[in-house]
């Protein structure tokens, strides 16, 4: 019997040691950016306690349906170019807390990996919660037979965040997960009134870490309130704000991923 992940060409994990560093934002923007490059993308949201992905695409009220091969992922538009799976769709009320211990979380993650009928996808992006615990161990174990492309690590420039991402790098090493690169998020803020750039969360920590750890540095994404707003309202930032300061950074990151996959296939 054909596995539900057989039609997925590349699996990418988005990891971060710290919470609040913009993992889900980067996952979402990566998906949108890949779609604009003509790719079919799925996002698997394994953050069971804090599922953010559905709202970022304004589909938080959608339901999940069953089909013969399993669960049907939620499509964000008519083109079916981006599909999602998240526990967010399975909650009766959006404010319901998922207060589960590890074993129950592990069981659901196994189901998410095996029982979602993704169909044919160019990329499956797996958005994880912060840390290196049950969800991460289970996700990597469940995905291992499908040989994920690798992991993108998201950090803010601050040393405190970088400190956690160092541990995340160790996790990747220990679990045999290839690190595609580090993204330094929230890297600088350009004041809309006077164009002065302030490094609110310091700068350079992510780049330094990449150098120190010998992994590629994918780029700095600056703080952009337009980006925050788009995500809040479930709009397509890539489409609406190509002139934003965050856009070139995101486009560059996507390009490096595409180049990486092209290299891999050749």
């Amino acid at each position: 019997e054909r596995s539900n992940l057989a039609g997925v060409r590349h699996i990418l994990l988005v990891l971060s040691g710290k919470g609040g560093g913009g993992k889900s934002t980067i996952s979402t923007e990566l998906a949108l950016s890949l779609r604009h490059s003509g790719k079919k993308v799925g996002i698997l949201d394994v953050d069971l306690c804090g599922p953010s992905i559905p709202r970022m695409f304004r589909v938080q009220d959608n339901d999940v349906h069953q089909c013969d091969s399993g669960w049907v992922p939620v499509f964000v538009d008519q083109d079916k170019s981006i599909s999602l799976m998240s526990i967010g769709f399975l909650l009766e009320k959006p404010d319901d807390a998922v207060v589960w211990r590890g074993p129950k979380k592990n069981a659901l993650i196994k189901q998410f990996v095996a029982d979602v009928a993704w169909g044919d996808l160019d990329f499956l992006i797996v958005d994880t919660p912060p840390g290196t615990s049950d969800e991460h161990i289970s996700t990597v174990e469940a995905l291992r037979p499908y040989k994920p492309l690798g992991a993108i690590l998201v950090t803010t420039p601050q040393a405190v965040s970088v400190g956690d991402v160092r541990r995340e790098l160790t996790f990747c090493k220990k679990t045999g997960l290839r690190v595609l690169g580090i993204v330094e998020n929230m890297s600088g803020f350009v004041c809309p009134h006077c164009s002065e750039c302030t490094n609110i969360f310091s700068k350079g920590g992510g780049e330094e870490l990449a150098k120190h750890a010998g992994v590629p540095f994918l780029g700095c994404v600056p703080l952009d309130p337009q980006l925050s707003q788009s995500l809040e309202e479930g709009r397509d930032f890539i489409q609406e704000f190509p002139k934003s300061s965050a856009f070139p950074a995101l486009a560059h990151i996507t390009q490096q991923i595409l180049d990486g996959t092209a290299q891999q296939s050749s």
Partner: protein
Amino acid sequence: MAVGASSMAGTQQCFNQDSIARTLYIGFSHAAPSRGYRQFVLERRPVPRYAVSGLNRGRTSPSSGRPGQGATSGRASSPPAPGLCFGALLATAAVQCGSGGETPTQRGWKQSCASLFPVGWDGWFVFQVALLDIDICGPSIPKMMGLEGEQVHQSGSGWSPVYVEENLCVMSVGFLLSSPDDAVIWRGPKKNGLIKQFLRDVDWGEIDYLIVDTPPGTSDEHLSIVQYLGATHIDGAVIITTPQEVSLQDVRKEINFCHKVKLPIIGVVENMSGFICPKCKNESQIFPPTTGGAEKMCQNLNVSLLGKVPLDPQIGKSCDKGRSFLSEAPESPATLSYRNIIQRIQEYCDQHHFHEEKII
């Protein structure tokens, strides 16, 4: 493992009047300024660090009851009996955040708990504050408190927490890791075991406030801490959010969690609430409150909004250097916010205790 002066943490142990009345005062670590006076030096053996890569050497087994069991350094006497020893604990506030990343605020106001009353060497009234970091996978507190590289020492009465100031001590898994690259890749049960050990085997001494810093989410750590502290008393939870809906979404779940486990909510803090450009002084909303921010959410859910803390680049810098933001930037609007929030928390705790005493 040699116990050098630089690796000994400062500690002040106040035994209660019934036990030995001596004040042990050990030199401060290099992170905190030296007070210039020492009374006793107690020989302490550091808890050996262990590579936390899934190896269970019995240290985190909840049934062991003895920190360092199986450790190479060996120990002369056993720690206090199993069971929580918080007779002297006056107030515990669990700090929770929904989506994570709000730690600069936590650190800021925790530090100020300790610094609100100046500690003169002959000063009487000072809050003893303890900070317990149960973010096992992402322990940031040691760095933020300038305690990176410190070790946990053990003695007859248990593990000694690491002291930042005379009246502020910290315990975190970060002190048990031998390298900043060490990852704690543990499933829930093992994390729970360590949390239990932290509560049972750490010799906190007499403290006024125990603040528990939790990781984001509503999972093992949160369930365990509420469960384990259930026998004593948790004054309440302080929940941190940013103005964004994506954060509020998670915080509503945290609030729900608190209701489910009957944990009182002291209030919500809105962090990263606005940014004042240092050049033109105009305010920008970097994380726009598209759904009314924490204020609206608190109104809807009938929870107190303790305060809003604006974004100040100095906060991040101070945290990274392990210094107190409140001391480094006393004039910052963020400092004022922090102090107001702490005041409100203290008022809540005081009222609460007064009320409890009345009932008794």
